[in-house]
């Protein structure tokens, strides 16, 4: 499948996930966890919007840069959110969605590498 089309789908998935996380915020019993998730949701929303634009325009290097940025921040979010301090009913959902986002961008970067796009030269 075309790399740009696939990236577009991935960004669309990320967009949906960020909206789900935003919608689940009122069900979060932990204030600190809620603000932390709000921050990552808005970040995912913004980068998904940027990524959709880049995919639409066929800008491969910007998609790669966006993917690395998402992986960088989302892994930081997961690393903090696994703390028992952030326990809340929404935690499994938050961790699951952000983990899927991490995985899809690793897959996307692998595909970009297979397509000979320079994934380490940012």
């Amino acid at each position, binding site marked *: 499948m075309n790399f740009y089309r696939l990236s577009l789908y991935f960004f669309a998935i990320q967009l949906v996930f960020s909206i789900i996380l935003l919608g689940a915020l009122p069900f979060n019993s932990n204030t*600190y966890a809620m603000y*932390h998730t709000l*921050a990552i949701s808005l970040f995912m929303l913004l980068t998904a919007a940027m990524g959709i634009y880049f995919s639409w325009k066929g800008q491969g290097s910007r998609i790669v*840069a966006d993917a*690395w*940025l998402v*992986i*960088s*921040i989302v*892994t*930081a*979010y997961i*690393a*903090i959110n*696994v*703390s*028992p*301090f952030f326990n809340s009913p929404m935690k499994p959902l938050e961790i699951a969605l952000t983990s899927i986002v991490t995985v899809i961008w690793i897959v996307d970067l692998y595909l970009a590498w297979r397509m000979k796009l320079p994934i*380490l*030269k*940012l």
Partner: protein
Amino acid sequence: MILSTYIGYRALSFLSYFILPQHVWLVAVGLLLAISLHGGWGAVLTAVPKSHMTLTEAITDTVGLYIAGSLIAPDITRFAKRAKDAVIAWVLHMYVFYPFLILGAVAIVLLTGSVIITEDMLKLGMGVGVLLIIVLGQWIINTVNLYSGSLSFTNAIPIRRDISSIIVGIIGTLLAAYWGYTAGASLAPFESFISLLGSLLPAAGGSVFAEFYIVRRYFDGIKDPYQRFKLEPGKEYSEVNLVGILSFAAGALAGFFVPGIAAINAILVAFFVHIILAYVFKKAHIKYEFGKYVYRGGVVR
């Protein structure tokens, strides 16, 4: 870290792009949590430090913490496409990111009395975050430092930069292991080293300022700032500047022995001694630049 430095600027660029956003996120969340759990910003503003130091000691230590970074900044900023980009990057870093990290760390220390932020994060159960901060933070910092060290080593001994990164990396690792083994968890050797840097290195800045803004401009009559230190392929340059070394030594001695703010003393003394010595040597027609270095062109990566 040695491998990253061996690869060179590309690895540095990638690491910065990947690690820094993650680092900022981890530190920012940790800091905000710690502050909100210990009484908020109001508590920070009314907090009283448990131990005190004089203002001159504080300035010397703060300069010492940063002066080496300032001196090696051109090793990285030389890759900027335009001079303006280097200035923008430096200003953003200096006035936005660095104060954010320093003021955040100060707030934590005032509130908790713990001088190690990672300890406070560990109390919140952020073990994985702390691990990432320590591993990735050390990775990027040491890679930049080793990169600059390998460039300096290449200037002193003409070998390939990637080979010098391995040599300097092994020496640095052995020295760090020795200090780590002898000092254990104590920060005392690090604090002494910071004070040493704060007294010693600002003198180098004073010498460079004097050479660039006064000697080259007024004594040598080079008005265009881009021409004052310009390297041209095939052209010969001197390797040793005696006035630079003497003024640096004078500034460093002033930093150590003259009472007051060591960093300012060192810069001012080195600056004026450099100008005076250069003027005297030039008037007396005494050559003070020695050695022969032929610039071969290209950028060392």
